[in-house]
């Protein structure tokens, strides 16, 4: 399967199943579009008709030969032979669990309108995870991680800093046993920043491999939704704390993580504000997750604006890089030579199988976005996964599980999409969240265009 697109003056050809990426001129772009359906003679005639005397017949035939060589080398028009691999990775992994999202606090000191977790309560009671429950979760993870060495734990909520002492004790416990268990814990922290102090900065910068800092960009945008229970905006209180934490981390291993809504589909203004006015360089900005009738929900008109914004962002990032002041956007971070293998690309994030969320009470859910949906409870950290039928449903989720994905060129980048997004959009984890697909494809096109621009400039 081949995907051709033109962006920012580049003609780009993606070979889905080999991962090949080719940057071509107009003539080659035209030839490739005809290659599988036309004879060489017909291609020559069509190209001559389009380009006239600017290209000779010999040129065209040489280019056809080059395309054939790429096909012979397995870099273009590669057949899709991966369907029979779908599911093998998860089957081979058995019941291994390697990552947990620890909900250490089902409560929050902010009252954000758009919160998918209903102000941190997940449609339930307020609660803090005890050290004992957290320790059992870490033991469950180690006991069920098989031969996996790298284990990941994200401290999440709600607001995890509202249970900071337990977070620190859990990290210390994991560090005390990881060597003897042959494991390597990587901790991450997602916070709204309200309770950041010197102790948090010191501990997080020593122990957290990544910190995710919630800020929606411009003050008027952030303070429209990210407010406390008195309705006061959080911007002026959190920005200085974030700046201090990031400076103490050496400006690395963090993401400013914003959410854009119907109020700001022009989200690049928020990214550029964080970069130019606040000094943050590692940025992530995500579309809101909410019901379609929610006032914050992105409309079809918004989605067109957002897609254009992704292009604006990609071009601007190239400019910044050229000027020696680069910024990072999470979704544009592609590693073409060191990216994931095809097994990972087919199987996806591992939600419900190797990745689970743990509630303050020790219940297991497929991921943080299913917490509070009682029918999606997998089990608990004492008894493990008891709803094995549900786990099998998630095990069956992969890039080849949905008929709609069969002809999609991006399926080995998205792995068939996010099960939670599909569930919230369609009522089924095997559904397809079309708006999410459109945005995902646009992001990948932009990210690859940036790679093409950098490679061809060298």
């Amino acid at each position, binding site marked *: 399967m081949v995907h051709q697109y033109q962006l920012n003056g580049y003609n780009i050809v993606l070979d889905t*199943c*080999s*991962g*090949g*990426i*080719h*940057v*071509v*001129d107009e*003539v*080659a772009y035209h030839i490739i579009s005809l290659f599988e359906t036309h004879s060489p003679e017909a291609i020559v005639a069509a190209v001559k008709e389009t380009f006239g005397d600017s290209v000779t017949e010999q040129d065209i035939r040489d*280019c056809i030969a*080059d*395309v054939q060589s*790429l096909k012979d080398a*397995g*870099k273009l028009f590669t057949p899709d*032979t*991966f369907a029979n691999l779908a599911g*093998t*990775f998860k089957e081979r992994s058995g019941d291994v669990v*390697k990552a947990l999202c620890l909900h250490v606090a089902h409560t929050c000191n902010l009252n954000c309108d758009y919160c*998918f977790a209903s102000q941190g309560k997940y449609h339930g009671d307020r609660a803090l995870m005890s050290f004992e429950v957290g320790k059992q979760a870490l033991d469950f993870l180690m006991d069920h991680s098989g031969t*996996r060495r*790298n284990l990941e734990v994200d401290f999440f909520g709600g607001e995890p800093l509202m249970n900071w002492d337990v977070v620190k004790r859990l990290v210390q416990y994991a560090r005390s046993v990881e060597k003897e268990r042959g494991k390597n814990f990587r901790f991450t922290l*997602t916070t709204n920043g309200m309770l950041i102090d010197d102790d948090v900065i010191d501990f997080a910068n020593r122990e957290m491999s*990544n910190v*995710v800092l919630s800020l929606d960009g411009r003050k008027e945008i952030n303070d429209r939704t990210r407010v406390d229970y008195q309705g006061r905006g959080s911007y002026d209180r959190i920005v200085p704390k974030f700046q201090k934490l990031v400076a103490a981390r050496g400006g690395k291993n963090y993401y400013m*993580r914003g959410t854009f809504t119907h109020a700001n589909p022009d989200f690049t203004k928020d990214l550029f504000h964080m970069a130019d006015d606040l000094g943050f360089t590692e940025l*992530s900005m*995500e*579309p809101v*997750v909410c019901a379609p009738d929610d006032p914050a929900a992105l409309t079809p008109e918004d989605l067109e604006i957002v897609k254009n914004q992704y292009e604006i962002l990609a071009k601007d990032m190239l400019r910044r890089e050229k000027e020696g002041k680069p910024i990072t956007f*999470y*979704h544009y971070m592609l*590693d*073409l*030579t*060191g*990216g*994931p*293998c*095809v*097994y*990972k690309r087919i199987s*996806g*994030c*591992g939600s419900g199988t*190797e*990745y689970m969320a743990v509630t303050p009470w020790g219940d297991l859910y497929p991921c*943080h*976005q299913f917490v509070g949906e009682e029918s999606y409870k997998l089990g608990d950290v004492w008894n493990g996964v008891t709803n094995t039928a549900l786990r099998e449903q998630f095990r069956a989720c992969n890039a080849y599980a949905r008929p709609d994905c069969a002809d999609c060129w991006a399926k080995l*980048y*998205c*792995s068939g999409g996010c099960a939670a*997004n599909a569930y919230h959009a369609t009522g089924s984890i095997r559904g397809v969240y079309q708006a999410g697909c459109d945005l*995902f494809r646009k992001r990948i096109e932009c*990210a690859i265009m940036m790679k093409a621009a950098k*490679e*061809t400039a060298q």
Partner: protein
Amino acid sequence: MERIKTLDTRNLCESAKNGGCGECQTACKTGVANQKCE
């Protein structure tokens, strides 16, 4: 004249032979495109 420039990429067919160790990492919280092989 070079009409086609092929970027250096990991060949996915090759990765089917030696991939699948599962050690790679599981920002956004809301694809695998941005992951690195470990």
